[in-house]
C-alpha cells in the first residue's frame, strides 16, 4: 500500500499550475481523499502530481449576483460549516455533511470530488438539483459548463487535458424553496448506494418548483426529470410524491454490485426520492 514514485509540484498560482499540467502524465491533486488511496493501491500511477493546495485563490466561498461561487479547493468541512451556504444554499451545506467522515471532510475538496466523478459521491446529487455549473480553466482560456454536461460517465468528465476545474457555481436558493437530501449508504465506505436531493417549492398546495437529482443509482448521477415532470404544477401531497418518485430510476442503467442489486437500488431510488420530497415539504 505504497504509491509508485512520482514528481510533485505545489504551485502557488493557477497559471503556474496550468503550465505544469502541460505535461501529459501529470494529474491534479485536490485534497487527495480519493486519489491518494488509488495511488497507494497503484491503480493510478501518474508521473507528476500538481497539488492545488497552495493556491490561495482556489479556496473561497463568495456570493455574486445571485450566484455562489465556491473555489475548487474549498473543503467539504468548509462547505458544511459555511454560514453563507447555510443561509443561502442549505442543500449544499447539508450534503457536504454526509460525505465520508470528519477527517475526509477536513481534507477533501469540492473541486476534487466533482472532477473525480465517482458515481456514488454525494455532491453531484445536490449540485445537479441546484443546476450547478463548473468553471474550467486552461492555458488558452476558460469556460463555464453545466454540471450535467461535465459529468460524462463513471470517473469520466469532459475536463480536457491541461484544464483545471477552478470553481463550482450554485444559485442562491430561491425564496420558498425547501430542500432535502436522503441517502442509504454502503456501510463500509460511507458512499451512497442511493442519494436523493430535492428542491421543492410549494404554493397553494401545488408544486411550484421542483428539482430532483440522484447519485449512486446509475453510472452517472442524474437529474430525475421524469419525477420533476410528474410533480410540476400538481398537488404537493403524499400520493403525488409517491407516484412521482416511482419514476426515480426511469431510463437509468441501474448499477448492480456486491453491495446492492439493481432491483434494490431502483427501489431505493424511489423510496429515498419520495422521502426527500416529504422531508422538503415538511420543512417548507
Amino acid at each position, binding site marked *: *500500500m*505504497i504509491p*509508485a*514514485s512520482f514528481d510533485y509540484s505545489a504551485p502557488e498560482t493557477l497559471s503556474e499550475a496550468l503550465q505544469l499540467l502541460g505535461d501529459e502524465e501529470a494529474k491534479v491533486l485536490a485534497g487527495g481523499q480519493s486519489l491518494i*488511496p488509488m495511488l497507494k*493501491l*497503484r491503480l493510478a500511477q501518474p508521473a507528476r502530481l500538481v497539488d492545488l493546495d497552495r493556491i490561495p485563490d482556489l479556496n473561497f466561498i463568495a456570493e455574486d449576483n445571485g450566484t455562489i461561487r465556491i473555489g475548487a479547493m474549498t473543503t467539504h468541512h468548509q462547505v458544511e460549516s459555511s454560514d453563507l451556504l447555510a443561509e443561502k444554499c442549505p442543500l449544499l451545506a447539508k450534503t457536504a455533511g454526509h460525505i465520508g467522515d470528519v477527517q475526509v471532510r477536513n481534507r477533501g475538496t469540492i473541486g476534487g470530488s466533482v472532477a473525480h466523478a465517482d458515481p456514488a459521491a454525494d455532491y453531484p446529487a445536490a449540485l445537479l438539483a441546484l443546476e450547478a455549473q463548473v468553471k474550467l480553466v486552461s492555458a488558452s482560456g476558460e469556460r463555464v459548463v453545466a454540471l450535467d454536461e461535465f459529468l460524462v460517465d463513471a470517473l469520466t468528465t469532459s475536463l480536457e487535458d491541461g484544464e483545471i476545474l477552478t470553481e463550482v457555481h450554485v444559485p442562491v436558493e430561491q425564496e420558498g424553496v425547501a430542500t432535502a437530501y436522503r441517502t*442509504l449508504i*454502503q*456501510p*463500509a*465506505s460511507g458512499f451512497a448506494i442511493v442519494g436523493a436531493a430535492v428542491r421543492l417549492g410549494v404554493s397553494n398546495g401545488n408544486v411550484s418548483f421542483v428539482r430532483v437529482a440522484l447519485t449512486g443509482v446509475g453510472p452517472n448521477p442524474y437529474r430525475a426529470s421524469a419525477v420533476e415532470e410528474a410533480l410540476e404544477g400538481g398537488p404537493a401531497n403524499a400520493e403525488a410524491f409517491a407516484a412521482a418518485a416511482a419514476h426515480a430510476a426511469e431510463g437509468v442503467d441501474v448499477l448492480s454490485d*456486491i*453491495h*446492492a*442489486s439493481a*432491483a*434494490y437500488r431502483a*427501489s*431505493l431510488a424511489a*423510496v*429515498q426520492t419520495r422521502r426527500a420530497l416529504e422531508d422538503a415539504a415538511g420543512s417548507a
Partner: protein
Amino acid sequence: MATTTTAPKLKTHVGERIRRTEDPRLITGAACYLDDITRPGMLHAAVLRSPYAAARINSISIEDALALPGVKAVYVGKDVESVGGVPCAGSMPDLRIPNHKILAGDRVYYVGHPVAAVVATDKYIAADAIERIEVDYEPTELVSDPEEALQEGAVKVHPEYPDNVAFTFSQEGGDVEEAFRQADVIVKEKILVPRLAPIPIETRGVVAEYDEGSQELTIYSSTQIPHLLRTQLALQLNMPEHHVRVIAPEVGGGFGSKCNVWAEEALAAFVAMELKQPVKWVESRRESILVVAHGRAHVDTLELAAKNDGTLLGLKLHILCDIGAHHQLLTPIIPTLAVLMLPGLYKFRSFKADLIGAFTNRAPSDLYRGAGRPEATYVIERMVDKLAAEIGMDPAEIRFKNFPASTDFPFNSATGLQYDSGDYATAFNKALDIVDYKARRAEQEAARAEGRLYGIGISTYGEICAFGPSPATPAGGWESASVNVEATGKVAVMTGISPHGQGEETSFAQLTADALGIPMDDIVVVHGDTAKVHYGIGTFGSRGISIGGSALHLALQDVVAKATKYAAHMMGVDAETVTFEGGVFSSEATDSTLTLADVALEAHLCRQLPPGTEPGLAATRFFEPSNFAFPFGAHICVTEVDKETGEVDIQRFVAVDDCGRIINPLLVEGQIHGGIAQGLGPAFQEGVIYDDEGQLLNGTLMDYSIPKARNMPWIETDRTETPSPVNPLGTKGVGEAGTIGSLPAFVNSVVDALSPLGIEHIDIPMTSQSIWNAIHERSRT
C-alpha cells in the same frame, strides 16, 4: 431462589471497577507495537501473493526485482524448502494435511497464496520490487464453493487426494432415531454461516533478528501465543527451542487471528538467519482480509425433533466447513467445538452430528472470536425459535421449559460435556425484566396493527471457556505464573498468558494486591516474552483469568506461606500464630509487626534464614484445570425493520451475562460490549464474499464492513455471578460471550419482525439488501 452467590469479597481490589494500569502508555502513544520496533540494520520484507485461486507456476523471474537498488534478496519457494511447513494441530484419524509450504512450490491454491518474498533496505523499495517480479502462472481448474467441492467429479484442490474431504468428525448421544420417531414435530433448516475476516485494527507483523555469536533467534511477533509459536518455529527451523526467543510486543487486537503460526513468521526467521540482518514484515490490510484465516465458514443442515409442548427431544446436524486450501494451526479443531456446544443450554435427550471439512480454492479458515460456539449458538437458537413459531409457543417459554434447573449442576450435556455450574433461568429472567418483555410484546402487537415490522429476539446462550483441561486441548491447557517479591518489596508477576487488550496487567495486579496487601503501583505484570516468563499456553478461548489467574492465585498462596514462615522466624514466634492482613504480619504472641517489604528484604539478605527454608521470596506454579468452564447468559434485541429499505433499527439491546466470579466489572463490561459488536457485525453486515473464480470481492475496509460507532446500539448490560467450581477463582471467562450471545438475538429479532410476512429465515449477514429481498419476494408472491 437465586443461586447467584458472590464469593466473599477479598480486600480492596478484587471486584472493583479499577481503571487499567496498561493505559497510560496506550493513550499517550508511548506503547510499542510490532511496527514500532526498529533494529540496527533492519531490512524490510514484502510478500508477493497469487492473483489466481489455482494455477501452476511455470517460472518466476526475479532479475528485475533484484536489479532495483536497495533490494537485498528475493526468495521463492525452492529457496526456503529447508523450512518446515505451517503446522496444524488437528488429530482426527482421517485428517488430510497437505504440505503447507511457507512459500508456494509449483502450484498456488488460493488467491493470496504467498509466492515470493522481497527483502530490501526500505519498505518503499520492497513495494516497488514486488511489482518487478514476473510469475508465469498457468491457471488451472478450481473449486471455490464448498458444496460444489464435495460433489462427485468436483475439481480436486489437491490432486494427490481422491476428493476434497479434508476430514470428518461424528458424534452421537442418546437414541436420536427414537427421538425423531417419538416427535410430534420436526423442524428443518439449512443455515449458512459465512466466512468472517477477524480484522484486528493492527494487522499481523513480525521482526526477526539472529545473533550469530549466541545463535539466538529473536522473533517479535504480533501473536497471542508466544510460547507455542516458539515451539513451532524451533521445529520448522530445526533449532533447539532455547535458541529461539519470541516476544509479543504490544498487540493491537487478535480475536483469534493471532492465535496461529503463520508462514511469514518462519519466513522472516529464515531471512534474518540467511542475510544475518534483522528483517521486518508488516502485513497490509488487503493481505490481512485476503489471507488471515477467516472464521466460521459453515453450511449447516439441521433437524430438530420435539414434542408439541415444546420439549426438545433430539437434534441432527450436518456441518460442512469450508476450510480453504490449507490448514492453519487449529483449522480442523474449531468446527468440532461447534458440534460439542450444539445443544446449547438445553436438555436434549439425543443428538447426532456429522462434520465434514472440505478443501476449496480459498484462503484457510480457522479460529475467530468464539471459534465454533457462535456457529453452534446461532443455529440452535434459530432452531428453537423456529420450533416455537411452529408450535405457537412463546420463544421465552420454550427456553425456560428446556433449561436444566440450577440444582441439576454439574449438568451432563447431550454431547458428553459436563457444564460446571449455572442458573440459566435467573439470568434469563433478569434480561426479560430489564427489557420488560411483556410490555415489548404488547408494543409489538400495537406495531403490527399499524403494519409496522417490530421484532423481539432472544438468545440464551452457553459457551465453553477457560481452555482447558490439557487432555481435551491440542497443545496443553494449563498455565504458568511466577511471583517474585523483590528485595525492595516490589512485586513482579510473570504469566504465561499473553494479553492483547484484555487488561490482565490490571486484573492480575488486583489479585496480587489483595493477596499481598500492597498497592497495585508496587506490582508489575510481565508477559509475552519467552525469555522472561515461564512456558505458558497463551491468551485465547477466554482462558486468561481462569487459567492464568488461577496459576497466579496458587503462586501467591505459596509466597504468602513462605513469607509467613520468615516472618514467624524473624518475630521469634510460632508460624501458626502469625496472621497476614493488609500486607502486615502480626502475631498474638508479640507486639511487633513486619511488613511484606521487611520480610522480602530479609529473605534476600538471609541473615536469619529459618531452618529448612531457601533464600528468596518467589514462587512458580502451574495450574491445570479439571474441566472447562461454561459461561452463559441471555441477550434480547428489539428491532424495527424499515419495510421499504430493509434497514434495521435496533431499539434495545439487553445483555445479561454470567461469567462466574468477576475480578474487575469495568473490564468485563468492555469485553461484553466489544464481543457484542463482533456478534452484531456478522449479523448485519460482515462477511467475505468470494466469486466462482475464488476471488475475494470485498478485500478492503472500503468494502468489508465492520461496525462503526453509529452502527452500534446502546447496550444495556447486567449480570449474574455463578462461581465456577473448576478453578480456585470461580471465574468462567468473558472474552467471547458477547460475540456468541448477540448474533442470534439480532437475527431472531429481525425474523420475528418479519414473521407477519411469512418469512421464517434469512441468512446472515442480514443486510438491508437481503432483508429487502426477502420482503420483496413475499410481497410479490
